[in-house]
């Protein structure tokens, strides 16, 4: 459904995308993770034909962005970053325009408006002016317009910003449902959302895809988390080259609060690693304040993967 090969794009001398490569099939919900400025929006703009690629091949729904712009645009639903909408319009008028422009009319159009209004929970708001809606509802309207023509490919740039937790759950379920029969690419920098919605995660950093793995695999890594008090540099140096584990994240808390380290076992079990950490601290007279199972945060993951590709960055 989406096929990107060797995609490169510069803004002036700044390299926004560097040989990006990924592939998505029907029935996949893929999360696109990365810090601001990593290239998420640039990639999305290329997929939606808002920008032309500089080099490389980009195919969406079987069509090449370089030659079949309109054919692609007919088959995608797109929610741009922070849901830009025509604020003067009423919700119904806006959805009507977005439907008509995609070739819906008559009964089919009104059915489609009713359908997406129900799905996105904006039935009550149809007669309201978009400018009067709260951020969360505007986001929903944005999603509704992206779904109105039941596109084969749904591309959502930061769909969760501005939503409250309840709204997030609703929208998440909607996206997951939609992804069963179609293809969904969503960008975010909230890891938990990506985890809950997507079956696959692409992490992008400085214009490169640094990892492309299933969400479950990424997040359920067995790891050990420890907070150690002692001389920071020594502790860090020690765990950096710990023989039983790989350091996947570390954080210096300040002079007296110690260091947090996040370790992934290599060639041993979690328990063995925990024991080894404990023993190491004891031997060097560092105090071990906390030792337990690690929770992966986006920061950790991110560090882990950017380090992997560190030399090039």
């Amino acid at each position, binding site marked *: 459904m989406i096929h990107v090969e060797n995609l490169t794009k510069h803004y002036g001398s700044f390299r926004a995308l560097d040989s990006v490569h990924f592939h998505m099939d029907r029935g996949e919900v893929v999360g696109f993770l990365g810090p601001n400025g990593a290239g998420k929006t640039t990639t999305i703009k290329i997929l939606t034909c808002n920008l032309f690629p500089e080099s490389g091949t980009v195919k969406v729904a079987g*069509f090449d962005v370089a030659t079949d*712009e309109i*054919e692609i645009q007919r088959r995608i639903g797109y929610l741009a*970053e922070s849901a830009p909408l025509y604020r003067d319009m009423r919700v119904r008028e806006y959805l009507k325009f977005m439907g*008509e422009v*995609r070739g819906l009319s008559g009964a089919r159009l009104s059915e489609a408006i009713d359908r997406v209004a129900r799905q996105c929970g904006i039935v009550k708001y149809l007669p309201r002016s978009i400018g009067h809606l709260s951020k969360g509802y505007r986001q929903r309207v944005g999603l509704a317009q992206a779904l109105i023509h039941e596109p084969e490919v749904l591309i959502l740039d930061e769909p969760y910003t501005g939503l409250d937790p309840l709204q997030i759950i609703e929208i998440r379920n909607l996206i997951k449902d939609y992804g069963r029969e179609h293809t969904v690419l969503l960008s975010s920098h909230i890891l938990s959302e990506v985890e809950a919605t997507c079956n696959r995660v692409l992490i992008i950093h400085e214009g490169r895809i640094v990892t492309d793995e299933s969400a479950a695999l990424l997040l359920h890594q067995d790891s050990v988390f420890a907070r150690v008090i002692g001389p920071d540099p020594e502790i860090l140096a020690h765990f950096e080259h710990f023989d039983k584990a790989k350091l996947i994240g570390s954080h210096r808390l300040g002079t007296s609060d110690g260091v947090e380290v996040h370790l992934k076992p290599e060639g041993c079990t979690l328990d063995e690693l925990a024991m080894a950490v404990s023993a190491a601290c004891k031997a060097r007279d560092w105090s071990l304040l906390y030792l337990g199972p690690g929770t992966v945060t986006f920061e950790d993951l991110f560090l882990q993967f950017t380090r992997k590709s560190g030399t090039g960055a």
Partner: protein
Amino acid sequence: MTEKDSKSKAPEETEEAGVPAKEGDVSSTEAGTVAGQADPEATMKIEPRPAGRIKVKKAETAAHHPGPSAWRSFVVVWKKESAGFFYSPVAYIILGGFALLVAWLFFDQFWLRNEASVRPLFAGMPLLFLMITPLLTMRSWAEERSTGTADQLFSLPVSLPVLALGKAAACLGVLLLALVITLPYPIMAESMGNLDWGPVLGGYIAAILLGSAYVSIGLFLSAMTRTQIEAAFLTFFVAGLLYFIGEPFFLDRMENPQVVLMLTRLGLGSRFSSIARGVLDLRDLLYYVSITAFFVMLNVAVLRHRKWL
């Protein structure tokens, strides 16, 4: 455009070469002939083998993309843009101000002239349009860009020329509405004396032609700028310059007759007055049409170029 559409439909069949995709295509062409109302039953009748659940679903979704014609897209964009003018009070204020100025132009010395003529009305039109057009065109692209709706707009299956023409048509529509406001004046003049309708008709045609030229300049500059204010001022200056270079008060200071002739031909206003006198010359018509086309093409080129940045 429609030709291109039907051509680009072809890869769809080959790309997704498989039975379900073909079915989808059949149904979509079917849907096109039955006035957009795709009937899933009909699809199944065409298909000799029993269609499974998923296949029917696929056929339905494909029928959802009959691909509106360029004309249809143009109408949709035009409707949306036109409505946009009347959501806010801007259009009403512009039209109200225009109506006041027109009334002043018409009644000023109307009784003194003692003749059934609306000449001063049309003589003032280039300046009046110069004042209101930048206000109409300024937001067209600049606002889309500054609010981010441009990203959404350019992802829709509408080609850039169709978008640009839709916006231009909407702005021109407001100018037409402004001209409709002036209709009572010739009718009034007619009731008071014997009005020569030739120059009146010429005046309206000239106003529409000049209006199109102003609108296309304004839209192009709106696409070039990020804020509405910039767009409005630039339009005022550029369109104003093109207008004033052909005007007597400017040309009177020129000595070289060749330069004067050239500038008169280039000026947006000089041809206006000849059409408004009732002399419809094909060259004048062509002049306005080509100015309009030139700036619409520039507009499209700017939008297209931005996709490469």
